[in-house]
């Protein structure tokens, strides 16, 4: 009986730890962007790194971070870091996150980054994203260097005390490892096909 409980507990732990940890090599993808083109990381051979943002239209946390994500994309592109956003939600569960709605939002907000649709929900589980927004910072070899939140204040960018993502990029640029390398991404759970 105890052994059974141990095995069960182990299974639960294994399941909850699915997805990438810092140091793992992240998979590339080929996903449709709101402009209709397919986008992959290999399209950016000169990139020094990638800021992969799992985000969506409907989640209030994602909306709060929209402008900050757009600013990060503009600010870090000249430094060689490509920000790529991926909507992982199933539109049947959350119609506001349909591809058409993504196109509208990308246009309205003049997104300065590719906004991709994880059609069939194949990519986010490999990364281990569970929320929107959920950040994965990769170096140029696609090694995961930071996972988690953008910063420590979703509601008010002016009240932020710790810029987790920007600090992680700064560390990476200096050739060191981000500390912390993992924070908890706060947001809405990813809406999985029922």
């Amino acid at each position, binding site marked *: 009986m105890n052994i059974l409980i141990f095995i069960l507990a182990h299974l639960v732990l294994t399941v909850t730890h699915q997805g990438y940890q810092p140091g793992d090599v992240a998979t590339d993808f080929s996903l449709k962007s709101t402009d209709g083109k397919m986008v992959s990381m290999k399209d950016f051979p000169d990139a020094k790194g990638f800021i992969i943002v799992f985000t969506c239209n409907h989640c209030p946390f994602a909306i709060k971070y929209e402008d900050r994500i757009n600013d990060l994309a503009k600010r870090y592109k000249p430094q060689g870091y490509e920000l790529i956003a991926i909507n992982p939600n199933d539109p049947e569960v959350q119609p506001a996150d349909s591809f058409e709605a993504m196109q509208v939002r990308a246009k309205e907000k003049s997104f300065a980054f590719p906004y991709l649709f994880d059609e069939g929900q194949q990519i986010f589980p490999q990364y281990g994203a569970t929320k929107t927004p959920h950040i994965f910072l990769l170096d140029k070899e696609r090694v995961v260097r930071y996972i988690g*939140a953008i910063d420590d204040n*979703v*509601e008010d960018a002016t*009240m932020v005390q710790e810029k987790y993502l920007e600090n992680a990029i700064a560390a990476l640029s200096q050739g060191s490892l981000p500390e912390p390398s993992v924070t*908890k991404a*706060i947001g809405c759970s990813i809406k999985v096909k029922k």
Partner: protein
Amino acid sequence: MIFFRTLFLSLFLSFGHVLSLQAQEYQSFESFDALKAYAFKNNDTTYIVNFWATWCGPCVKELPYFESVYRSYASEKVKLILVSLDFLNKIESHFIPFLNEHHFSGEVWLLRDRRFNKWIDEVDPSWSGAIPVTLLIKGGLRKFQEGEFSSEEDLSIFVQDFISQSK
């Protein structure tokens, strides 16, 4: 006679008006530490603590389950605490009207501490960072669930199991 009827009607209407304006009280906490210092002092009471927000669809959907399960323990030492993580700029426009519309019998707390990474592990290390989550506490015993309950019965079993284990 018309005068009296009008008087009666106007009294009735104004009374109704007062009732509808009666506000549900809530406790506000600036920090998680302040909430912790205040909370969960009676060791023989079972606390049902639910973290929610008005903008969270699954949270709002399961709130009636909590109210109903809580009422079924009316004669026991059980307390329901609904901890809201509503956006601070939506308190007047969303949170307070929502409370006044629903009049919860559980206590409503508003936690204003936005540095989630500093405190969510204290609620439970397995909390990924999404809501709703539910924590049951009695003395040193705790039981945590992330994600919504599928039905009132689902929540009822969750609470009942904990209460019988903690006796």
